[in-house]
């Protein structure tokens, strides 16, 4: 099909709700094709309810498949079967646990190729160009995929959620439930309770770096974060040193964040860290080294010793908020 422009969007459903990252895939799809060429597969728990919600974002057809325990191999089988029928030029996934697994699985099955963790998509002539960070955020790479279907996973929070159109409805088609493959059996799922809100979803994040000098500094950052209703995270060195748990690591190799306000304290600003916080709406850097790389990315900067700056900041915030 020479003029094939179709895009299949894979949406994860959790308890009847489409995942926020999946809603952003519609914006990515609209950057390269028209609404009429978009179809979607909604897979997970409460897939049908999630499909009704997703139909407001513009797909012509929404396929649904219930999957109680989402395992990537079971989802892969469903996507492969559907894509073989639909013949999409591009399959869009979110770069989540599931999408990260699915991209290479689908690429292998279709003898095609995937580009993962994409942060921009554009069309040049007849070519679709996918941009992703490489070398720990030191560089960006533009790729084309010569084979079809092109499998592309999109980094969450790089595209805005697609606008909802209450008047738009899609044809909803139910598919058989996804079944896990033989060979792998999930024995148990263990939830590890994270204290407080998730760092990826927080509106305000306070990050600490090597400059804090030890684990004690994080108690001061926690005080600031609590005051602001935010969450504390860390760059890679404090996590490597055991000053802060690895689950709170911010950066390409940790959590990608896009808060309204990010306050980076004692963080010099490695490429992998800056790449992971590039979605922050306002970045404030506190660092005594005026030459630190973080100031190249910051909107506001304080060049001073955090041990003196942060307590003064905390005191003034308390005063302003009347606490």
């Amino acid at each position, binding site marked *: 099909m020479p003029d094939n422009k179709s895009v299949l969007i894979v949406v994860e459903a959790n308890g009847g709700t489409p995942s926020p990252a999946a809603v952003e895939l519609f914006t990515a799809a609209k950057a390269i094709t028209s609404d009429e060429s978009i179809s979607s597969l909604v897979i997970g728990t409460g897939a049908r309810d999630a499909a009704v919600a997703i139909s407001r974002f513009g797909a012509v057809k929404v396929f649904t498949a219930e999957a109680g325990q989402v395992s990537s191999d079971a989802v892969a089988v469903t996507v492969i079967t559907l894509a073989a029928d639909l013949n999409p030029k591009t399959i869009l996934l979110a770069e989540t*646990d599931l999408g990260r*697994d699915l*991209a*290479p*699985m689908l*690429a*292998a*099955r279709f003898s*095609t*190729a995937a580009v*993962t*963790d994409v942060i921009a998509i554009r069309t040049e002539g007849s070519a679709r160009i996918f941009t992703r*960070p490489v*070398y*720990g955020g030191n*560089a*960006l*790479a*533009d*790729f084309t995929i*010569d*084979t079809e279907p092109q499998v592309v996973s999109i980094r969450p929070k790089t595209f805005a959620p697609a606008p909802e159109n209450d008047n738009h409805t899609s044809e909803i088609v139910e598919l058989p439930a996804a079944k896990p493959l033989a*060979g*792998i*059996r999930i024995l*148990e*799922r*263990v*939830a*590890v309770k994270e204290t407080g809100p998730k760092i990826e979803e927080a509106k*305000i994040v306070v990050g600490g770096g090597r400059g804090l000098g030890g684990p004690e500094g994080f108690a001061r950052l926690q005080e600031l974060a609590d005051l602001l209703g935010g969450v504390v995270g860390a760059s890679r060195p404090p996590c490597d040193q055991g000053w802060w748990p*690895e689950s709170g690591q911010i950066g*390409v*190799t940790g959590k990608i964040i896009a808060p309204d*306000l990010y306050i980076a304290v004692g963080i010099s600003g*490695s*490429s992998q860290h800056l790449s992971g916080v*590039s979605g922050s709406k*306002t970045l*404030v*850097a506190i660092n005594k080294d005026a030459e630190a790389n973080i*100031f*190249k*990315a910051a*909107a*506001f*900067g*304080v*060049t*001073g010793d955090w041990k*003196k*700056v942060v*307590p*003064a*900041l905390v*005191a*003034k*915030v308390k005063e*302003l*908020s009347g606490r």
Partner: protein
Amino acid sequence: MDIIVLIKQIPDPEIPPASFKIDPSGTKVVPPAGVSPVIDPYSEHALEAGLRLKDTNTGSTLKAISLGSGLNKELLKKAIALGADELILLDDPAFAELDSAAAAAVLAAAVKKIGKFDVILAGRAAADWDAGQTGLLLAGDLGLPSLSRARKIEFTGGKLRVERIVSGGFEVVEAAVPAVITVSGELGKLRLPNIKGVLSAKKKEPLFWKATDLGTVAVNRRVKLVRLYQPVREAKCELIPGATPEEQGTNLAVKLRELKLI
């Protein structure tokens, strides 16, 4: 059990951003002068996983494979120093700058040449191109089940028991062998070699396999790199005034309040 570990040689990812340069052709990284390549940190976790499996399963063998062009033999012999029985270097100019799919195809051919194995371990990604695909593509090419992001791997009663990192916790999964497992950083750091290991690595040479040793293997790139470039960061930082750090801290609070950010 018979274990295969994939170890990738990459440019040192810890170099300062200022030393990172891209070739004027816009498709290659210029290796910084005087900085040696390293074993990819995720590959190191995979190697540690393999060594632990070998420790706990008497009579196991471990083969380490590395793929590239102009590989650094001395660097990769670290695998032997740590306890690998064999180091296989897939080293050929034809193997330069492969994409994930082509790399997986070459590795699949090498694995078939090795023949007997129970588990293939790889890092969950590599710290240069960060694609996170090769291990799972290899599983697909070989028609094997794959498990990603393992933080703990055991082999009991002829089955693999793997703890996988998933969002918000972990998953305990049982799998039959043979299987491919990608390993996450949470598994733990690579051990240090002992004297005995270092001596054995001095004596033992790796096997070198070229493209022609692997029979017909397609190394076509399906992904085309159009351009490699450095992100432009605008240096428009507004410095918060103040005679002392305390005053700056106070002024920062006022500024953030003015902007309605707090």
